[in-house]
């Protein structure tokens, strides 16, 4: 009897220990693949953490290795805002060597939190230094920059030109037009609290109407029947007549590049147009993380992001414009999707945005009940 008991107790102990063993085996297995960059003594591995609109990580890794000689591993950390916050939260114990995907809205968090290490400004291509200084006004003029601009774009109101021609209604051009009676119930916007594109548009209205005036403008939009939806695809593919069979509204918040995707079959015309007087600029930045295990490798990867090979691929892969002015745009982009001119956009500095954003959203919540 005693013998039986002991054996069964032993079995119980063995069963109890099983998951522990499994967990250990699990961590042991992954040790090889997960993070060679930090365990191995060799400094040939680099990790870059990116937002979730980045290109295929494996393809990028292969191309970047060919160009830099480093083994490049790509990690994803949510959208631009989430990525920024994760980098700020792990300041001092970085989750990677380099990062890409922090945009001008969130840039000041990276700079204020000392998250990014300086990078030599001489690697910047033509036209990029100005974009780098725009988010780093205090350090402008030095030899190094904390944030390296990689690509850019613009959030703009888009219209279905075919719809306006058919209905014989004049096309709108400006912010003010959208509150005009003849465009009642025709506009779809994005909830700025749920969508970064929507937030971008709200920032543009703050830039255009001031902190005291933008809420009033939104109230007029609301009274003129503007619909505010949650996500960009709900708006563009669900509500916009220019992109959906079931859509009912010919005015939508989208990007300056969107008309390149509504080009007719022979490539001679686009059925939609971006209103370039309603845009705000978005610039996406990369950088080396402070405390990176492999800062040289990180800088090499960032140089690759600025190489003409990568810059050239940006429009097709990420729907953004390259920062390198000498990079060539696809034909449809060059023809139908120009960026708004300098000075035509409605922008605020990153520090202004960070100081005001939460209050503006709260104000909007109170005025239009988002």
């Amino acid at each position: 009897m005693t013998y039986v008991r002991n054996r069964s107790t032993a079995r119980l102990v063995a069963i109890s220990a099983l998951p522990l063993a499994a967990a250990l085996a699990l961590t042991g297995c992954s040790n090889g693949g997960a993070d060679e960059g930090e365990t191995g003594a060799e400094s040939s591995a680099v990790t870059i953490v990116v937002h979730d609109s980045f290109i295929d990580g494996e393809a990028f890794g292969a191309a970047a290795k060919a160009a830099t000689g480093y083994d490049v591993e790509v990690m994803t950390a949510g959208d631009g805002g989430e990525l920024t916050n994760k980098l700020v939260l792990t300041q001092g114990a970085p989750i990677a060597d380099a990062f890409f995907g922090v945009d001008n809205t969130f840039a000041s968090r990276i700079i204020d939190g000392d998250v990014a290490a300086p990078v030599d400004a001489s690697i910047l291509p033509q036209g990029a230094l100005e974009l780098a200084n725009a988010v780093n006004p205090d350090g402008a003029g030095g030899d190094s920059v904390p944030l390296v601009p990689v690509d850019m774009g613009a959030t703009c109101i888009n219209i279905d030109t075919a719809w306006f021609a058919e209905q014989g209604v004049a096309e709108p051009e400006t912010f003010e037009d959208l509150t005009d009676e003849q465009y009642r119930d025709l506009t779809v916007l994005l909830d700025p609290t749920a969508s970064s594109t929507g937030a971008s548009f709200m920032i543009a209205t703050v830039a255009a109407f001031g902190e005291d005036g933008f809420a009033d403008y939104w109230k007029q939009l609301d009274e003129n029947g503007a619909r505010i939806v949650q996500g960009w695809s709900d708006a563009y593919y669900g509500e916009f007549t220019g992109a959906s069979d079931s859509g009912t509204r010919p005015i939508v918040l989208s990007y300056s590049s969107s008309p390149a995707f509504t080009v007719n079959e022979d490539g001679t015309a686009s059925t939609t147009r971006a209103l370039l007087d309603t845009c705000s600029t978005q610039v996406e930045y990369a950088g080396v993380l402070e405390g990176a295990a492999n800062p040289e490798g990180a800088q090499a990867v960032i140089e690759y992001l600025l190489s003409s090979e990568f810059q050239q691929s940006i429009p097709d892969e990420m729907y953004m414009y390259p920062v390198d002015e000498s990079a060539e745009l696809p034909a449809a982009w060059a023809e139908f999707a120009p960026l708004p001119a300098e000075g035509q956009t409605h922008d605020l500095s990153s520090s202004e945005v960070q100081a005001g954003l939460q209050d503006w959203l709260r104000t909007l919540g109170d005025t239009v009940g988002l």
Partner: protein
Amino acid sequence: MRASDRRLPRALAWGAAAAIPALFVGVFFLWPVLALIATGFTSDGRLDLAGIPEVLGLERSWRVLGNTLAQASLATALSIALGIPAAFVLYKLKFRGRSFLRGLLTVPFVLPTVVVGVAFTALFGPGGSLHVLGLDRSLLVVVLALAFFNVTVVARTVGGYWSQLDSRQAQAARMLGAGPVRAFLAITLPALGPAIASAGALVFLFCATSFGVVLILGGREFANIETEIYRLTVQFLDLRSAAVLSLVQFAIVALALLASSLLRKKHERAYGMRHEERTARQGDAPVLIVFGATLIFLHVLPIAALVWRSLQGVKGTGVTFANYVALVDPPESSPLRGTVFDAIGLSLWIACLATLIAVVFGMMVVLVVSRKPRSRLLQRSISLYDSAIMLPLGISAVTLGFGLLLTMHRRLGIGFDLRTSIVLIPIAQALIALPLVVRTLLPVLRGIDTRTREAAMMLGATPARVLATIDFPLLGRTAGLALGFAFAVSLGEFGATAFLVRPDAQTLPVVIATLVGNPEPASYGAALAASVVLGVLSAGIMLGAERLRPAGISTGSW
């Protein structure tokens, strides 16, 4: 001397069985969550509680709290109202295809929230067939979607209890002239009370902490505490306000768990041999109609809308399989990396690991919690332990994800950074599946009549022998369903997975979210198609697991 000799290893074994899962939950859940909340309450290295009055002074905080309670109460009431007829039909009536229908009704519970959100939008949103009702972005749609998941929970819990309820009293009332409605209201309903209340508390917990559905369908207007914590943390890095709301959420969850555990105790009892069923009669027609309407309008319609929309091509192409083709052979511009099979493969692999962890730890927890010690202190500790293991159900996935980032930096004595390792994904999913595994298995072991064990002991069996011959086989036979639950939940898990920093490989729910947000015209259709694929996978697993359930054992009475 001999007696204490025996007691020590036994106590050690039980201690280990209790400690290992507790350690797992402590290290991967409590520590990260508390660390993040603590960060919110410190400034410049000192304790700073000024955030509490500040956040509680905001009108928005109260609105969010009000939304949370309103949505959860309404959805709980609706789930109970529709769940009781479903319980009657599925557990009291005998008809062909009943077990299939039971399995089918389990499916909504494990469907990924991304899929359900997309399905309800496909029905009520712009372009959907019920868009004319103008319910898009209304409280009603949020409540309907929450009920979509939870009618099952009520039906299972109440049904399992009902089928063993002694109906002689109700029959006597009928004999004495009470109508069927009166007999139900006066006799049966009060008798079902504990089961209904315990299911209600759990449904309330699920609804009050719902994330994906409320985010997709509710927007900012109907934000609940969970989505508000998400916004504060992910958009504003306002950890202070998020920490305050986390405490509020914690209080709600603790209350719901307490209520659930108190009420559960009343109806978790030894299973009798009684099992009353009958065929349907004419008088059952109203109940059958309610059940049929629930099934068709609440469950079938949104899913049908999803499937229908997934068969529509880009503008002007009509009905086509193009969206599905794009999953298998993605065009160059698609954000899909590799084919959908790669994503399915990765999802299945991760779900296997998560299931292994959740089921093994879950069984250990269940063995411990199902003991009925004589000492009051031990009884109390066990019920406290039971509730603690349930906590991961009720804490925001964002808080967990960001907390893991803060804490998992090589501190565990392992030589690599767990924060960026793919291993963390199955661990996070296992944390979420663990409470469900426990709730599925526990009633079976608690249902063992104490006298059976006592009789075995009397006949000379040692405690370990009793475990080996009575508890383990029963556990093994029910494991199939628990396995299915863990697997399906892990397969569809989106929240925690999305908030981890992950290697550049996509699980199926992440693929759907990526496709939904992509500007390429064909992506939205592909997202709908991928949702259908994920739904079919989860449903298949659940139906398979339901078949593994041995007849006559009523499990899953959450």
